[in-house]
């Protein structure tokens, strides 16, 4: 397992601005993932972030809108750029500690509201 923290836990931002979300893990992991979730709904994968390589984005998500950094094996950031109210959501990071075996451990999430 892994213990994951996220900052900030929540934020209210104005449209047109950007917010960077941080994800810190208590152990070194190869695979980190960023998800978006509407309250009470399922998770949508934004991108996979592996240390030492460019993030891999899912269909409908682009690097210009959601740039990701992965400077080392315990840390990653997701930036939500040029925000609009449609970006209001919960953003979650997760890690796979077993190298792709399927089990993922999640951070507590960042609740973003864009006004």
């Amino acid at each position, binding site marked *: 397992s892994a213990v994951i923290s996220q900052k900030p836990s929540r934020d209210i931002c104005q449209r047109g601005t950007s917010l960077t979300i941080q994800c810190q893990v208590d152990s070194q992991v190869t*695979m980190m993932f960023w998800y978006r979730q509407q309250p009470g709904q399922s998770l949508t994968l934004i991108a996979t972030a592996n240390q030492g390589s460019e993030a891999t984005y899912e269909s409908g998500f682009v690097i210009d809108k959601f740039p990701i950094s992965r400077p080392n094996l315990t840390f990653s950031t997701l930036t939500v750029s040029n925000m609009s109210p449609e970006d209001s959501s919960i953003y979650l990071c997760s890690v796979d500690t077993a190298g792709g075996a399927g089990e993922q451990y*999640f951070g507590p999430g960042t609740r973003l509201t864009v006004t």
Partner: protein
Amino acid sequence: TQLLEQSPQFLSIQEGENLTVYCNSSSVFSSLQWYRQEPGEGPVLLVTVVTGGEVKKLKRLTFQFGDARKDSSLHITAAQPGDTGLYLCAGGRSNDYKLSFGAGTTVTVRA
């Protein structure tokens, strides 16, 4: 279209009752995970099943993986208000590091 179909979408029961949540797919998975998420928190991994026909018990929770590894169920006996939350199933495949999530089942247990 969700690769994993969960049912029901919502479930509201009285404390002490039993409940079952289903997770079905037309695809075969090498592993199936169940998560529970409470408001304001991230999903918490409850169990992973990997063998067709496998049954795992975690106190009052029983998880089953279908023989063909296409479906799974979560059964809660004598539900308690602390069981309230969003239950998510997720499937993993051996040739893919990503998980496919179901739409989720919101369970409310009334005291």
